């Protein structure tokens, strides 16, 4: 997030796109709704009528996979209304003219036809967004999990720069991070192409510093991404894997391929708190300590590095993952694997990672942590980003063009399946929530959301199970009739192993971000025949 979470309630306009915020980020949704209570306008872009969409002043229920066309339409309407922030554009950005010329060539009626949203609604949203002095855009995986995910994000950035809604307390572009420490895992370079703090593998100065402190060489070629590893297949290059606290056998697209890949490995080690579907395939399983049994820091969506404290000793013979890694490191002769405390590890992190330069445990103990970039011990942390200039200098406008998703509906597969987190009470592959008695009680099984019109056409009884088929597989799942989804679209979650919906999903991904297209997959729905 370029902003802090608390700043959301001070914005005049909140544009939420591809995020079911009330269910997936309840406390962020609370800030959004507090803003609305104070008079802010809420625009929601989502094919589903989510709870937040019901509260919105304008709900743009677009056809799945047409975000770029919609945002281009909004930007064109803003320029037509003469509402672009010319001062911001001239001082802080470059290549605006190219984008403007492209937008002028667009046919707005065509955009209405592509997105399925009336032109007057697009114009209304554009006026609300551009007329405000402080507008925030929140987006989540509904924007990124497309084959055109990177361009979707670029389109959102174009929109914010066009109206000068960046670089300030109550305006910005805010990706909401899904897991408690997905921000930190990225910051710490659990990524194939960077070193901690997003320092490039080809950054000579950074490499030298790491090699000095680590006292060894660092490989220079970027590694494989998660989906490239888990989809490498039987003939793949990956022969051994170590998986810490993840469950790709349920969470990754096109599951049959993931299973094939993991089963043919010469060696698979998994460290987790439960025997997940992935751990069940492993040669070695390490029992990991849960969050309550260890200390350390995690970094939230607003870049706030916070201390977690150990509440109880590890149960049974469990050990913290940090401990397990160091034990393995010593056996593999990895240099510098003899830390005695988390604080000591953080000292090495702050030494090598400029944006974490001032993160020291004694400082984190005070207040409520620190937001990066925090360059040194005296730096107070950063509430919002890009105050005087962007990371690359000037903000660059880039033309983004609509293109159809990898799979489009056809006679054999006439429905569009959208997947995501499906409930306030569950989380991802539900290894934790399904071990919480009360959460299971609230939402015990997977449900496929289907519109009443489609349900009637299929002659379904309330709750009747159906078979959902895609080109890659099929699952059986109970239905729930709801107006949350439009006719022609169905939605379900990937929480339940009994309904491994990712057997159906497409493994096509964005060529740059490697983010799979979870939000659009063509399926057919059949009544379950009674034998």
């Amino acid at each position: 997030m370029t902003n802090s979470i608390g700043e959301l309630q001070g914005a005049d306009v909140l544009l939420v796109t591809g995020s079911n915020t009330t269910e997936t980020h309840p406390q962020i949704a609370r800030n959004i709704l507090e803003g609305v209570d104070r008079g802010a306008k809420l625009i929601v872009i989502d094919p589903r009528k989510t709870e937040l969409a019901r509260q919105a002043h304008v709900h743009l229920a677009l056809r799945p996979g047409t975000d770029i066309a919609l945002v281009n339409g909004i930007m064109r309407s803003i320029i037509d209304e003469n509402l672009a922030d010319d001062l911001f554009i001239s001082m802080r950005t470059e290549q605006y003219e190219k984008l403007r010329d492209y937008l002028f060539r667009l046919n707005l009626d065509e955009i209405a036809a592509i997105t399925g949203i009336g032109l007057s609604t697009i114009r209304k949203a554009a006026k609300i967004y551009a007329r405000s002095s402080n507008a925030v855009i929140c987006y989540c995986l509904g924007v990124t999990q497309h084959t055109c995910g990177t361009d979707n994000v670029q389109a959102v950035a174009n929109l914010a720069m066009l109206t000068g809604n960046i670089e300030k307390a109550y305006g910005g572009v805010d990706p909401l991070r899904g897991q408690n420490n997905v921000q930190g895992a990225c910051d710490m370079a659990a990524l194939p192409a960077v070193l901690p703090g997003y320092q490039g593998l080809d950054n000579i100065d950074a490499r030298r510093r790491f090699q000095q402190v680590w006292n060894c060489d660092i490989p220079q070629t970027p590694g494989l991404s998660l989906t490239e590893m888990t989809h490498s297949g039987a003939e793949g290059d990956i022969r051994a894997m170590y998986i810490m606290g993840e469950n790709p056998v349920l969470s990754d697209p096109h599951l049959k391929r993931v299973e094939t890949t993991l089963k043919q490995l010469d060696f698979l080690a998994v460290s987790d708190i439960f025997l997940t579907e992935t751990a069940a395939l492993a040669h070695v399983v390490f029992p990991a300590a849960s969050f309550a049994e260890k200390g350390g820091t995690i970094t939230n969506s607003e870049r706030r590095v916070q201390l977690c404290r150990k509440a109880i000793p590890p149960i049974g013979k469990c050990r913290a993952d940090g401990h397990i890694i160091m034990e393995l490191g010593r056996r593999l002769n990895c240099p510098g694997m003899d830390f005695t405390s988390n604080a000591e590890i953080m000292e090495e992190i702050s030494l090598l990672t400029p944006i974490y330069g001032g993160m020291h445990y004694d400082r984190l103990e005070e207040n409520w942590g620190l937001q990066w970039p925090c360059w040194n011990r005296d730096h107070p942390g950063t509430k919002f980003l890009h105050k005087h200039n962007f990371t690359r200098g000037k903000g660059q406008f880039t033309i983004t063009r609509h293109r159809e998703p990898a799979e489009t509906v056809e006679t054999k597969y006439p429905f569009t399946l959208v997947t995501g987190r499906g409930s306030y009470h569950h989380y991802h592959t539900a290894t934790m929530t399904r071990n919480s008695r009360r959460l299971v009680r609230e939402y015990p099984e997977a449900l496929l959301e289907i519109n009443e019109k489609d349900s009637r056409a299929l002659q379904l009884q309330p709750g009747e199970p159906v078979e959902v088929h895609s080109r890659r597989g099929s699952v059986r799942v109970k239905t729930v009739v709801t107006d949350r989804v439009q006719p022609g679209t169905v939605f379900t979650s990937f929480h339940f192993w009994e309904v491994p919906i990712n057997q159906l999903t497409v493994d096509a991904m964005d060529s740059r971000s490697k983010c799979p297209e979870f939000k659009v997959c063509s399926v057919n729905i059949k009544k379950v025949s009674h034998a």
Partner: protein
Amino acid sequence: MRDVMTICNYCGCGCGVYLKVHNNTVIGSYPSRHHPISRGNLCSKGWHLHEFVHSSNRLTQPLLRKSGSLTPVSWEEALDYTAKALLTAKEQTGADSIGILSSAKCTNEENYLLQKLARAGLGTNNIDHCARL
């Protein structure tokens, strides 16, 4: 009875949560009133954050696959076996034949250590996590 301040383990909001601890058992979770995000509030997952910690389904000992089935072993045996298998893979098929998945559920320190192990210990940049899922 003790109250331990920590951060919720579910989503990226990062709410401040107190864990109520009695006899080394976490028996409840409730929000910090002054934490900038939670401000005295939690969602249903946060209020039940402690429930899975003592689930009877928790893994409690290292397991090693012996003649087809996962069998309890000592830490030493599990760690030695893993280190040897990773070294064998590195020697026989090269460091880039090893893939490491880190976790958005683990701490910064653990993620830092694991990428260090991959890069400095094994010599590969094949490390990633679920940021895209």
